[in-house]
């Protein structure tokens, strides 16, 4: 490995008010090296990247690329210096073609016409050279997520990037697509590019990087050679202490508490479901794996009562529901943790107390003769804050001021209140830090222990495998047969997630 540093960060400090997002961070990336930047949400990874790329101006410190200091706050300078960035949220215009997206900004804005021929032949050459197959004339909106990411990488390569920064690149990929991405990255490194890989997933970091940098609370707290450390040590460094992995105790499988039989649903937008049958047993966590956009949202909406089935029946604890509305679902005893805690799970500008009673304000507990009982509401909020260890100044604080983890704990508390027999946990830990994730998991396992039937929907296969007694895979609106703990390997599940049929899987 060549020792020349191609990218050097020196003493970068960035403050937002009293918060120090980056505290005197210095490191370098050498030619042909893959450096992983590991850290929890809020550790300062995104801020650092935004500084690197010129979106933010650092309060102190400099960024050097190939020995030259980059002017602060100028994305053009970063691009010109050969820094390419693949954002977590793709920066692609969906209504334009691959070629148009790649060529955007590479030709003079005052040119009388776009040189498509030149762009097209260069894209084809790059695509072949790096195994990034895409049709230059395809519209972005019609591509799969994996293909879109290839376009993002092509965009950087088209601009002769020598340093590639990838921000949580696998968050949206299937395991198969992630494998393909890693192969591409290895090819890039072989051709002399350097890569800065930002992630909070340990196994990826181990798989791809040469060196790991760990960020915590805005500070660089550790630097290790990947082959000289292990996941446990890195996790401990990232969190600042040991995190106990959830202990899944053996629990007696109970009776069927929630059943969908031959249910079809046509949501106004989204993936329709046809003749779906699903039984959730008490004392069990059923995990639903799948790439988002394959019908999980429809199933969740169905379970939460926000859409009604067009045919088929829903039964909770053996009682068939006659009409299915959000109120019916709540009344039947379904605890709901929605996928998006900001858009669906809470009303940002209303108070903590108002939010925690929002599913139950009609009951005698919180209202009398049409008037709300604020004392009871505040008392309930205080109980949740205490029982769920929520950091929150008062029941009258607006809920949007809470961090994601604290907000999620409140939502979880609201859903679990009264020990519902059935729990829908849709992406319950998305975007949470390791500590909050462990807490949410322990609460779900507690509910399992007392006999609740839980459906855990997650895009994080590791989470599914760690908690679930049975795993289902959803693809294109269809549900696979369940597999018991450990029955199917990660790669088999990945194949199912990518849409291969179970028969094909058995034949192989």
């Amino acid at each position: 490995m060549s020792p020349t540093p191609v990218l050097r960060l020196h003493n970068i400090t960035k403050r937002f008010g009293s918060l120090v997002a980056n505290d005197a961070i210095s490191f370098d990336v050498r030619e042909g090296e893959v450096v992983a930047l590991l850290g929890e949400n809020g550790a300062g990874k995104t801020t650092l990247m935004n500084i690197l790329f010129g979106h933010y101006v650092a309060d102190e410190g400099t960024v050097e690329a190939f020995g030259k200091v980059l002017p602060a706050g100028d994305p053009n300078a970063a691009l010109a210096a050969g820094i390419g960035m693949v954002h977590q949220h793709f920066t692609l215009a969906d209504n334009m073609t691959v070629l148009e997206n790649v060529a955007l900004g590479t030709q003079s804005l005052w040119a009388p016409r776009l040189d498509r021929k030149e762009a097209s032949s260069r894209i084809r050459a790059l695509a072949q050279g790096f195994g990034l197959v895409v049709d230059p004339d395809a519209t972005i909106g019609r591509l799969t997520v994996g293909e879109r990411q290839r376009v993002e990488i092509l965009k950087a390569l088209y601009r002769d990037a020598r340093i590639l920064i990838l921000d949580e690149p696998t968050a949206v990929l299937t395991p198969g697509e992630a494998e393909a991405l890693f192969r591409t990255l290895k090819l890039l490194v072989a051709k002399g590019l350097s890569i800065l890989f930002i992630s909070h997933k340990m196994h990826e970091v181990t798989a791809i990087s040469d060196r790991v940098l760990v960020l915590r609370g805005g500070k660089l707290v550790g630097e290790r050679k990947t082959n000289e450390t292990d996941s446990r040590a890195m996790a401990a460094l990232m969190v600042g202490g040991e995190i106990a992995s959830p202990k899944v105790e053996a629990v007696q499988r109970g009776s069927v508490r929630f059943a969908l039989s031959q249910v079809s649903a046509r949501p106004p937008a989204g993936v329709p479901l046809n003749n779906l049958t699903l039984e959730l047993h008490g004392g069990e966590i059923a995990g639903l794996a799948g790439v988002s956009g394959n019908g999980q949202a429809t199933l969740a909406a169905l379970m939460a009562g926000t859409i009604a089935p067009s045919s088929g029946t829903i039964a909770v604890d053996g009682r068939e529901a006659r009409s299915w509305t959000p109120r019916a679902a709540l009344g039947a005893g379904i605890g709901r943790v929605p996928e998006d805690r900001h858009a669906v799970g809470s009303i940002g500008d209303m108070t903590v107390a108002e939010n925690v009673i929002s599913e139950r304000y009609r009951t005698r507990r919180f209202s009398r003769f049409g008037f709300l009982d604020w004392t009871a509401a505040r008392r309930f909020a205080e109980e949740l804050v205490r029982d769920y260890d929520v950091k929150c100044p008062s029941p009258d604080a607006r809920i949007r001021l809470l961090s994601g983890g604290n907000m999620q704990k409140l939502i979880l508390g609201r859903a679990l209140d009264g020990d519902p027999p059935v729990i829908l946990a849709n992406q319950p830990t998305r975007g949470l830090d390791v500590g909050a994730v462990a807490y949410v998991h322990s609460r779900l396992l507690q509910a399992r222990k007392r006999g609740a039937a839980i459906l855990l929907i997650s895009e994080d296969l590791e989470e599914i495998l760690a908690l679930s007694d049975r795993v289902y895979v959803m693809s294109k609106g269809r549900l696979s047969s369940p597999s018991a703990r450990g029955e199917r390997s990660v790669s088999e599940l990945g194949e199912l997630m990518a849409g291969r049929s179970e028969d094909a899987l058995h034949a192989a």
Partner: protein
Amino acid sequence: MEAFEILLQTSFWVAAIRIASPLIFATMGELICERAGVLNLGIEGIMVAGAFAGWVTVYGGGDLWTGVVVAALVGAAFGLLHATLTVPLGLSQHVVGIGITLFATSLTYFTYRLVLPQVSSPPKIEPFTPLPIPSLSEIPLVGQALFAQTPLTYLAYAVVAVTAWVLYRTPLGLAVRAAGENPSAVEAQGISVAAIRIGAVMVGSALMAIGGAFLTMSAFNSFFFEMVNGRGWIAIALVVFGSWRPGKALLGAVLFAAFDAFQIRLQQISGGIVPYQVFLMMPYILSIAALILVARRATYPKALMVPYQKGER
């Protein structure tokens, strides 16, 4: 069937294209703004201001083309005001747009009174005159309609062609379309989203003002209150009707104008049995029907009305 005979009259099609011309300018102007991600509800007021600016320039002794340029500059100035409030400051595009319409309209009327304090009937100017294009204008039916118009109408044709070319064939157009779809794509490629959006709103507003100027300089020959009469709002509907594409929007403008020309002629032959207001309503009812049929599944620019802040995702 007198009603159908109207469709075969040359004078009907000549009128249709004349009525369409200001709508074409305004629709292209709005389309450019929206393609960059900014809804410009200032259009109605900007057209009023443009109508007055062009007219008063000529009334004060300037020549006709100077009037057009002045109108465009006034439009661009209002565009800059709109863009300053909505792009870097990220204020509500609805509120700012309506504010600009009220402000531009009132300022124009006020200025009119300052310039002409004593006048009861507005003075006329010498307008653009039809300039038939040799041989092209001799094609039966369409020749007179398309090629025996005033130079401003020809300019409208050119504006559509240039808008379509720039949007779809040039690097600049790529940046404008990307700014309306996903501004972070523009930022990531090192282009300033704010510059693209401000520029688009200024150019678009200049075109709206020329559309207004057409009314005073190529149609009515003088300026009076309420003369724009909702044409700006129609242009906004035409952009949707055209699915944000210049060619389809042009078609929409001509179609609407044809309805309008048609209803005027229907009024004349109906002989007063049907109240004339019914006919006045017709183009609007038909355009709502057309919107329902055509634009229900329109794919609008995804970042339309979404303010963009640097570094935010």
